[in-house]
């Protein structure tokens, strides 16, 4: 199965649902090493994405990804806005002109998203950010690129979950948590957690088809 505009729209609606469901959890994670708004930020952003979908219908996977990007950039209000916004923007560019995405296209889009986050936030693996999730997810997706979209995303989601766990012992070197220095160790990074949740949600949407 490939990913069409329609299935991608459904998957994005799924993302909004997952974010709403985990809003409090993400706020609590951000309270420990940040400013307690990550769940609220993402929920505000994805709620706005749902509203945008009420009034406009994207005509390609790329247009859908671009709509998510611009909405998150405008509405999130925290670091995750420009970061995930840039991720979706780069994914939109990577998939431009394609009416359906196969496993390889999805893997390429994920790689573009990672590159965008790194370009925007200058974080490396080990800095205790969403990069610790995206980097292994892209690696797993690239290795599975010859398979179905569902298989690519399932591989990415599993690697993402491990990546999120890997942030717990780390000392933050980027973002607000870096103000805490050593005291940031022992906590799951909120952006890492949310990124893993988003990837698992995409994998579930693809797998359910």
């Amino acid at each position: 199965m490939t990913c069409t505009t329609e299935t991608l729209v459904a998957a994005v609606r799924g993302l909004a649902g997952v974010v709403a469901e985990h809003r409090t959890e993400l706020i609590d994670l951000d309270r420990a090493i940040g400013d307690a708004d990550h769940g609220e930020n993402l929920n505000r952003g994805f709620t706005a994405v749902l509203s945008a979908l009420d009034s406009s219908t994207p005509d390609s996977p790329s247009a859908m990804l671009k709509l998510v990007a611009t909405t998150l950039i405008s509405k999130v209000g925290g670091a995750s806005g420009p970061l995930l916004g840039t991720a979706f923007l780069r994914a939109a560019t990577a998939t431009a002109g394609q009416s359906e995405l196969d496993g390889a296209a999805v893997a390429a889009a994920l790689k573009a998203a990672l590159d965008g986050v790194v370009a925007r936030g200058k974080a490396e693996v080990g800095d205790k950010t969403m990069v610790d999730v995206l980097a292994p997810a892209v690696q797993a997706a690239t290795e599975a690129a010859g398979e179905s979209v569902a298989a690519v995303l399932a591989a990415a989601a599993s690697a993402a979950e491990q990546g999120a766990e890997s942030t717990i012992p780390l000392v933050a070197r980027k973002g607000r948590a870096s103000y805490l220095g050593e005291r940031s160790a022992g906590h799951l990074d909120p952006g890492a957690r949310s990124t893993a949740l988003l990837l698992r949600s995409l994998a579930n949407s693809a797998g359910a088809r």
Partner: protein
Amino acid sequence: MTVGLVIVSHSAKLAEGVAELAQQMAPEVLIAPAGGTADGELGTDYDRVCAALDRVDRGGGVVLLYDLGSAQMIAELAVEGHSGAGEAFVVEAPLVEGAVAAAVAAQSGADIDGVSRAASSAAEAP
């Protein structure tokens, strides 16, 4: 064509306060605060930053200063999306000290490179 300034902050008050402090030393420079979210919360607002950038762009270029890392990223996105008369740069500088130094440089007619340099070399208050 003096250089304009945009103050990007998570707090509306902070952005306005920095702007008024810098304005005092540079009455003719266009300085736009862009702080807080549209619903009055602490956070950054991309559309507000873009509007501020447009407002102070008179062709001589615009220098943007920010408080925290996420404000820096929003400022950079606003610059990438900007198609105004002059260039626009986000400078790495201490916000208050950099804004005052940048405003004084702009007031005295420095170009965008001079204003950026004034901001980024601003240490603590003299």
